[in-house]
Every structure is written in C-alpha cells, then in structure tokens.
C-alpha cells in the first residue's frame, strides 16, 4: 500500500489504457498487472457513437480508479478546459496534467504547465503534472501546491528508459518526502525497476505493455518487476565498489597464511 495525495493504492504501477490490440486485451492486461488505477482520456464523441462507449463500460466494470489526462493539449487554456470536462465526466478532481510543447519529443511545455497548474489547483484540483526532470520547474510546481510530480523518463512511447538518471536522482534527493512517479519513456521491466530502486514511488506506463508482442504477459512482468524493485529499495542495496571483496570468509580456509616451501 502507498499513498498518492489523498488516495491509497496497492500497486505502484499505474497503467495506461490506450494502444492495445483490442479492448478485451486491455482488460486482461489490467487484470494481469493487478493495478488499481488506470489513466484515461477524453475525445470528441462522434455523432454515430453517442450512447455507446464499450471502453468506458469496461473500465467501470473493472472497478479501477481513474486518472484522467489532458493529452493533446498545447496551451494552459486547453488543458484547463479539458481538466474541467474530465472532472465532470469522471467525477474526480485528479488530473494528469499534460501540456505538450514539442510535437517530435512530446516534451512538456514548462511555462504553460505552471500556468495551468496554478489555475487548476486554485479550482480544487489535485494536479499530477507530467513534467520534465528539470529541478527548477519541479520546484515551481511544488510551490504552487503539487503533492505529486511525474517527470518523464524519456519521450512518450520511446521505450528508452531513464535517459537522465542523474537529474532523476537529484529530484529524489531534493524532494525526499514528495510522491514522485516516473511517467513516460519506460520500455522494459528493467527500466521500471531502475526507477523504483532509485526511490521513485511509482511508475506510469502504457506503450511498453500495450504494444508488446504479448501485452498480457508484459503486464504481469511489469507488475512483478515493480514489486521486486520496491523490495530492493526497502532492503537497501550495497554500495558499488571498484574492486572485489570476497564473499567467502578466508580466515581458516586451508593453507591460510601458510608459507609455501620448495624443499
């Protein structure tokens, strides 16, 4: 169990719901991952689709908590309006705030992000900002009232893992009591483990599971990996050393400190 703002979750993995080969596989992946929170989004409701939303019916049936995002927004104004719409539809004041500044990297726009964060918090939102690992940006977000930060590991969907571990470690050190979640860029379970072993509280990912050859199996792999990573973090890893240190005690081994003779 871990606390994220005012919620308690069992699993440190939060799973996205997009890009799966089918809704059925998405459902099975969510079950296999044992997650209790999933990310969702909003899109225009087509005239011929109205009243028929199998996806949303499935999510409600699974009973997961939802974390709506503002994906696709490029200005604070768009993100604020989208967040307000999400709050009404999903009946939650939580928002995964995404304000994209570059189409090629999907890098967050830090300036618009701060503006949107400030406004949404003033309107009672629990803002979980998708941000870069920039320390000063993160400081501003915290100053405006964010209880959670969600720096990227790498560009969304790139699967590159943690591109800037130094900065991610710095954030962990500078915000020792804040909930930190790595959001985006994770490709393999080992990437997720690295983040959790670093002390990050959780991982949000989507593409790494949804686009895997076998999404349901990959969902299980991430579930186990993140649990293993957390155990490792709590256990405390040994410091890395430059030279070897024998694991087998040498005292009283045969021939210990015995002079060799060549008589």
């Amino acid at each position, binding site marked *: 169990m871990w606390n994220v703002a005012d919620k308690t979750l069992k699993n440190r993995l939060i799973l996205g719901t997009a890009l*799966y080969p089918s809704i059925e596989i998405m459902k099975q992946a969510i079950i296999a991952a044992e997650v209790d929170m999933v990310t969702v989004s909003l899109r*225009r409701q087509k005239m011929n689709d*109205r*009243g028929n939303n199998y996806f949303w019916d499935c999510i409600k049936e699974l009973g997961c908590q939802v974390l709506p995002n503002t994906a696709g927004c490029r200005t604070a*104004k768009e993100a604020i309006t989208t967040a*307000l*719409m999400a709050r*009404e*539809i999903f009946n939650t004041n939580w928002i995964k705030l995404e304000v994209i500044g570059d189409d090629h990297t999907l890098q967050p726009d830090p300036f618009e992000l701060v503006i949107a964060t400030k406004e949404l918090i003033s309107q009672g939102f629990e803002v979980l900002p998708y941000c870069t690992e920039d320390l000063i940006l993160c400081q501003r977000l915290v100053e405006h009232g964010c209880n959670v930060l969600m720096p990227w590991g790498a560009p969304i969907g790139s699967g590159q893992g943690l591109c800037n571990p130094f900065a991610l470690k710095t954030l962990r050190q500078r915000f020792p009591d804040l909930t930190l979640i790595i959001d985006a860029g994770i490709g393999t379970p080992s990437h997720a483990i690295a983040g959790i072993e670093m002390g990050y509280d959780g991982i949000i990912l989507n593409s790494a599971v949804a686009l895997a050859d076998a999404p349901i199996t990959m969902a299980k792999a991430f579930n186990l990996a993140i649990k293993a990573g957390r155990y490792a973090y709590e256990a405390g890893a040994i410091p890395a050393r430059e030279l070897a240190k024998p694991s087998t005690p040498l005292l009283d081994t045969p021939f210990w400190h015995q002079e060799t003779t060549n008589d």
Partner: protein
Amino acid sequence: MLKITLNGDLIELKAACSVTQALHHWGYNPHDIAIAINQIFVSRNDYATTMLQNNDIVDIVAPMQGG
C-alpha cells in the same frame, strides 16, 4: 437558423435553443459527456440556461483510452 460547429463539423439548427435542447436534438445522453463552447467549459448544471449562439464552436467529449 444557427450555424454551429459541432466537433469540427458545420451543422445547422433551425431555431435558437439551449444546450439541453440541442443535446436532446442530437441524441446525446448528458450524463456521459462533457461540453465546451468556444473552448470554455460548460457545466452540466448550466445546460438548461446556456443558449447556443450563431457561429458557436461546440466540443462534446466522452471517455476514451488514454496513456
């Protein structure tokens, strides 16, 4: 006659009407959607008293997969 852009498509309404009336006309269930008019959020509580204007841009959204 009102010209409305609904989710990017230009449509016409024969007479002035509220958001509640427009949603009914278009066949939407107001409990499954959210609305912005001219990029400004309109709360469900205000549907009945919000009148659509000529050239309004209406976005109606619903839950969708997201990462």
